[in-house]
């Protein structure tokens, strides 16, 4: 235990602290500059508010559309929207036709996009043309949710056709239909823009966060580096086996700590700008094709958990490269090259991405499932099993390198 503590302390050195601070500065600038300059809110008077205050205003005016999406809610929504100034402003043939696709926001985004998904299904995007409510299925709650589930099914089947690992069998389709049928209705609508921003920024910045791990952990088994391995380490009382094990555990602990700092900073920033209100909204209001009965908050936690698993896998990969190369610089170059290849060349669409640890923080881990035989397993469980597999391989490599580890001599 003492050894782990000392190794962990060693990892908080000038390199890792510089990398983490540089990353957090980048993350903060990226968040504030983009949210401040690009986003704007349309209020009920047809006025557009820009800057960070636009989010606070959106939260305030969105109280009108919060509630349970039942028959009464849908009737009220259609009536309100039809007589609203927003509808006139967002007219697809008008001068503001690009408003919603370019950072424009309105309170009607939260319920109306969900309704439009029922109509557009796999072709759903955001934009002025997909905010209207002129659909016959809105005449009753039941017909709306029937239509919604049909669209969800169509979406899932299309996703499988174009990006699935294997085509669904007839039995698998029936299991999927059953699962979709069990999606709990009516949905709860809440303002969730702060959480949406946070998760969106999280997905963008996650691969860059992994660069922090590369710089911090690439020297953990490097020969002669300040916090790597030297003659004293190898001749210590505990022996190299225990020391290498302690380094590995502390490396993982470091990765978890740095990840928690990253997530905490994101939560603080986005909570401060747009608030983290909306944790209890139904996941389907945010991830329209989510087949699980979870809330937006629950989905966010699952996504963060997926990211944590991915971060631990990458941390072990970096440590393995450090042990194999025995050099901090070579470890960094090799790890950055692998990370770049995983981001640039590995497909980020379809279910193939489930094998890529850089994608473990994407939203599919929260909302999707994958068939293993005839069982529909949540993606988060699959990423967990895959992570165990990857980590085992890396651990074996580290141990094998540890056995042959020499300082100053040839292996």
């Amino acid at each position: 235990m003492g050894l782990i503590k000392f190794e962990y302390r060693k990892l908080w050195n000038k390199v890792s602290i510089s990398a983490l601070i540089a990353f957090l500065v980048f993350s903060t600038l990226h968040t504030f500059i983009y949210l401040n300059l690009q986003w704007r809110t349309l209020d009920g008077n047809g006025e557009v508010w820009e800057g960070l205050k636009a989010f606070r205003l959106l939260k305030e005016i969105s109280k009108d559309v919060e509630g349970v999406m039942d028959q009464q809610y849908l009737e009220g929504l259609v009536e309100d929207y039809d007589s609203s100034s927003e509808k006139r402003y967002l007219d697809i043939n008008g001068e503001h036709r690009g408003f919603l696709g370019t950072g424009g926001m309105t309170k009607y985004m939260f319920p109306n996009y969900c309704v439009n998904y029922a109509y557009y299904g796999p072709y759903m995007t955001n934009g002025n043309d997909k905010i209207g409510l002129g659909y016959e299925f809105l005449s009753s709650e039941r017909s709306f949710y029937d239509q919604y589930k049909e669209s969800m099914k169509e979406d899932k089947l299309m996703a499988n056709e174009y990006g699935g690992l294997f085509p669904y069998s007839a039995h698998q389709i029936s299991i999927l239909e059953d699962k979709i049928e069990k999606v709990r209705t009516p949905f709860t609508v809440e303002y969730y823009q702060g959480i949406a921003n946070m998760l969106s920024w999280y997905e963008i910045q996650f691969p860059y966060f992994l660069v922090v791990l590369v710089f911090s952990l690439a020297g953990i088994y490097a020969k002669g580096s300040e916090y790597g391995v030297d003659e004293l380490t190898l001749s210590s009382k505990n022996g190299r086996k225990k020391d290498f094990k302690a380094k590995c555990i502390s490396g993982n602990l470091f990765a978890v700590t740095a990840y928690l700092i990253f997530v905490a900073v994101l939560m603080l920033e986005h909570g401060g700008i747009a608030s983290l209100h909306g944790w209890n909204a139904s996941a389907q209001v945010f991830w329209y094709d989510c087949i699980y009965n979870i809330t937006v908050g629950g989905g966010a936690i699952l996504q963060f958990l997926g990211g944590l698993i991915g971060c631990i896998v990458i941390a072990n990969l970096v440590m393995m490269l450090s042990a194999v190369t025995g050099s901090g610089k070579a470890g960094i170059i090799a790890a950055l090259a692998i990370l770049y290849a995983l981001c640039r060349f590995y497909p980020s669409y379809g279910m193939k991405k489930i094998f890529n640890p850089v994608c473990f923080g994407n939203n599919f881990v929260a909302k999707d499932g994958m068939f293993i035989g005839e069982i529909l397993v949540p993606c988060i469980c699959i990423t967990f099993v895959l992570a165990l597999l990857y980590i085992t391989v890396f651990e074996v490599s580290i141990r094998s390198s540890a056995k042959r580890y020499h300082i100053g001599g040839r292996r």
Partner: protein
Amino acid sequence: MRSIISAEWKRVLPLQIWILFSMVILIFTVYDDKKEKSTYTYVDADGNLIDGRDVLKDARQKKEMIPVESILLGEKKDFLTEESLNYLKVQNLVEANYSKQIGELTAKEAKNFYERRISHIRRNLVESSTVSYNKKEIDLLVEKASQVNAIMIGYAEGWSSINRGMEKFVPLLLLGISMMFIPLFGEDAKVKMNEFIFAAKWGRRQLDFARIFIAFGAGTLLYLYGMAEYVFIKLLDFGSEGGNFFIQGEERMFFSVYPISYIQQFFWNFTIGYFALFVAISFTLIVCILIKKTMACSAVLCFFWIFLLVGDQMNIYITNHYFFNFMPYRMTKFHHYYLENDLYRVGGESINSMVFTTCVAAIIVFSVLGMIALTLWERQNRKFVIGG
């Protein structure tokens, strides 16, 4: 002094680094060439896949160059066969100018080819959502644009490929070169040179001066060498024909207001890239002097470049106009100089972004050099004790 420069030069840029540098450029350029050629691949009317290499070979062999208006007026009907590269080029220009196919053009429309281009440019300037140009500025830009009066259609793929590829190549070159100088002022735990450095015969001042000289001198040499290798491979592969054609012959540059040729565009890009290199090197030096540890410097610089990359991807006019335009990454995204027509207004004068950016880059370099000098001077005057 010469001996210090020589020793430091060998330390930072040994022969292996030069060889690695050359190899990386070679691999990048050859890969880029291959990708570039594949963009010319198409499926013909009979459903046959025509390889991009054959398309280029065919176009190069023809050695023809004809003004676009002659083609449109039907004076050179034999020049255009539907599967030729020239046909594709003319079609792209016609589509950009008229939103029509070549066959749909009337003689009157074909005659007004340049007038129509100018009217598009004027309308774009008037309706611009980013810059509000005044009448004088619009007239000036339109006047420049109207100097393009003889767009030639012919084989110029070598130079156009060089100019297109520079947007990917130069940022990587700058990143690579500036990272090479991290060990100049960065302290490596393994090397532990400080004891020797502070006991050097000529003292720290000359050593610091030699290091700054090496950073900019060797940076210049590496930049020249890298660019020469890149251009040589490209020209060897695509040929050097058509360098004097107006850049507007390429669909991407059709609405550019600058009446310049591909070769002139290359030299403009080259010069701006050189200024960007100095900015990148000066940032590297100041970070290394302040942070000292090599690895920590690398991490900070890595995130600095990530920030520049993400900033460019965000593509917000205000941040670009006031910040990213003067940073090495966006400085080398050359297309925006020719297409976005961003202007800076200083003392009642409107300055185009190309000139203004290079001036600000020079100011940044001198300011950072001033900061470096101040930091080093302060350190030289500080009493130094090894291990203290």
